[in-house]
Every structure is written in structure tokens, then in C-alpha cells.
């Protein structure tokens, strides 16, 4: 049977809000596309743009970075810095030919399990339309 293209998504979730939000989606048994692989980070401010570049180099089709809503950060300012870094990275990747839709930044609080599931679902369908990222780049 034709192996239908399944986009591979790497998700960096902040430990205090989004990771707990994803847990909430689990405890409420909300099923969503299995494409996202979640990596726990202390804060969205911890995610280094180089780490995101590495994801794309390793064949990820999409990267999701999810932190607390601005103002709710457990470390007060982490997500503000993240917002600036990834605003720039998104535009630059798009310029280099990696569609900006492939890098998605969301604010998900610990109680928004449902919303987290919706985000993953919409991100997966969007990436499915975009097609695999690796095809466009030959691994040297």
C-alpha cells in the first residue's frame, strides 16, 4: 500500500505551561495526529535557533515551539525573548526556501489541552499540504 506522506514534527514545549497543557490533552483523552515528537525544555526562551536549524537539517518537516502566554512565563521574561528570536528565524528560513509555515510558535497554557490538540492537528494538515521538507534539500 502506498506509504502516505506523514510529516515529521518536532515540538519544543515549555515545562510549566505547554508540556502540562499537552499532558492535559492526554488526561482528557483528546486524540490528535501522532506526528509531533515532544521535547521538554524549561522555557521557550531556552530553545536556541541553532537547535531549530538542526531539526530541519535532520529531516523534520515542521518545528513547533510552544511556551506560556506572554506575561505568564514562570521565569517572567523567557517567552518575550523567544518571540523575538523566532520572529526573525521564521522570516529568514522563508527567505532561504524553508516555508515560514514550517516553524510555528504558539502560546499554550497548562489548562489548554484541547487547544494544544487543535494546534497539532492544524499544523500536521498544513505540513501535509506543504509536502516533505527533506525532498527539497539533498542531504550532503
Amino acid at each position, binding site marked *: 500500500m502506498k506509504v502516505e506522506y506523514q510529516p515529521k514534527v518536532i515540538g519544543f514545549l515549555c515545562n510549566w505551561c505547554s508540556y502540562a497543557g499537552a499532558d492535559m490533552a492526554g488526561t482528557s483523552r483528546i486524540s490528535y495526529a501522532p506526528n509531533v515528537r515532544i521535547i521538554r525544555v524549561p522555557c521557550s526562551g531556552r530553545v536556541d535557533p541553532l537547535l531549530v536549524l538542526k531539526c530541519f*537539517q535532520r529531516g523534520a518537516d515542521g518545528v513547533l515551539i510552544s511556551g506560556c502566554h506572554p506575561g505568564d512565563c514562570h521565569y517572567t521574561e523567557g517567552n518575550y525573548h523567544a518571540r*523575538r*528570536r523566532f*520572529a*526573525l528565524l521564521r522570516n*529568514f528560513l522563508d527567505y532561504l526556501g524553508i516555508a515560514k509555515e514550517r516553524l510555528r510558535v504558539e*502560546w499554550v497554557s497548562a489548562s489548554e489541552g484541547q487547544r494544544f490538540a487543535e494546534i497539532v492537528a492544524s499544523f500536521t494538515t498544513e505540513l501535509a499540504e506543504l509536502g516533505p521538507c527533506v525532498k527539497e534539500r539533498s542531504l550532503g
Partner: protein
Amino acid sequence: MNLELTQQIRDQARGLLKSGTVKGVIGYERASDGLTARPFFAYELTGTDQLIFDETCSHNLVKYLLDKKGEKMAVVVKPCDSLAINLLLNEEQIKREMVFIIGVSCTGVVETAWNQKSQTLQARCQTCRLPKPVVYDFLAEQEPIRRLEGELYPDILEMEAKPIASRREFWHEQFGRCIRCYACRQICPGCYCPECFAEQLSPLWVGIRIALGENELWQTNRTLHLAGRCTGCNECERACPMDIPLSLLNRKLEKEMEELFSFRAGLTSEEQPPFATFRKEEKLGFEE
């Protein structure tokens, strides 16, 4: 050779060396092709008459201050180079009192290579908006240069307008040619890390494989590390042996930093760089 400027620079250099204010003067001298210029370090009085200044003096000499942190040096600085001085001051790499800045109000430098000197001004000079250096201790003056009002980012706009697939392919081809000689890093005043991320073993970000996969990671992150810091001297593109249009990368981020955070690198040495701070209410495209 621009006699007027050269003479002012030589006199200034001789004065500084004789009085012992500086240990050496970093300037330009005629290259071995007898046509273009190359960096020159004058430590003795006799050396000062090798100093020249003309439209082939393209190098950004501020980079060399990073190797001479212990001694007080004088450095010849064009307006675009002077932005790099503010960058290094802001990032605590050099101390203002350890540098005597010989500013030059230049009329633009031309495209050059070894044994080749064209008449066309370099791109950065066609859109130059700095009549004289933003910081200097002595200014080698000359008749005021004509105001150049070229449009800032025509090539970037054109690249952005291309469909994403052709942008992808264009950069594949360019990055495919990179031989990782790291000349772009070694010539840049903004690159001074003791051990560059591209050469670290742990964590292993970039392998030694000279191929598209690693090259793309290297070039992308090098450009990101210069976001809001690159002062547009464009020496990296000039040094690149493989003809990779690096200014298309650096100036794209220069344009982004202007549009996202209305920040331009090097104008002052006090302003907080954009990634050191934030504004709570800015949305930057990620809605609440």
C-alpha cells in the same frame, strides 16, 4: 592614490608613533600587484610612508584590533568601518581608550581583486549614508562627497519576490559550492568567539563534511549570529573564493532587524542590542 588623504594619514601616524601614544598604526599599503591595497601595520616611523589611502582600500581594519587588545593601536577607519568600532565597544571586546581612530571621509571604494581594479563603486558605497565616521579621534577630511541616495534593498526585495522553490534551489546551489574555508568568518569584525560553533565537538552542531547539508547549517547560523550586529562592510562576500553572494544573506537580516525592531547596528555604542531586550506589547506576528 588620494594624495591629500594619504598625506594627512601619514602625518597623523608619524605624530602618534613619535609621541608614543600608540604602539602601531593599522592602515593600508600598496599590494604586490602594484594596483590595489592591502592591510599594513606600521610600528616604526620609517613604515609610515608606506601608508596610502585610495578607492581600493576596501578591507575593514577594525577586525585586527581584536588581536591587539593588549596594546594601544591607531587604526584607519572608513565611515562604514567605524560602525564596527561601536559594535565591538558595545560588546566589550575593545576599550575606547586603547584605540586611536583615524577617521577618513571617503568617497567610496571600488570593486577590486588581486591585480584587478574596476571603476564601479562597491554596492555598499552606492547606498552609503554616512558622510563621515560615526566615531573618530582625528578626521582626514576632503571635499564633501556627493550624497548617494540609492535604494537600499533592491536585490533583497527581488529575492523575496521569487517563488519559494526557486529561492530554495538558488541557495542549494550557492551553499553547495562553499568549501568551508571560513574566510567569511575570519575577516568579519563581528566574529570573535574563542571556539566557533562550527568547530565545536560537543555538542556537535556542524560536522567536518564539506557538503550542502553541513554548509547550509554553517552559513544560516553564521548569518543569524550577525543579525543586528553586521555593519554592512561586506568584506565577507569580497573574501569568499567561491563567489557566494553573502551580502544577500547579511542584508536580508539587516532589513529584518530594521523592520521588526527598527534597529541598525553600530550607530552608537550604548544602545541595547535587540536580542538583549524586548517590548512586552509587541506581537511580531504571533497573535496572543
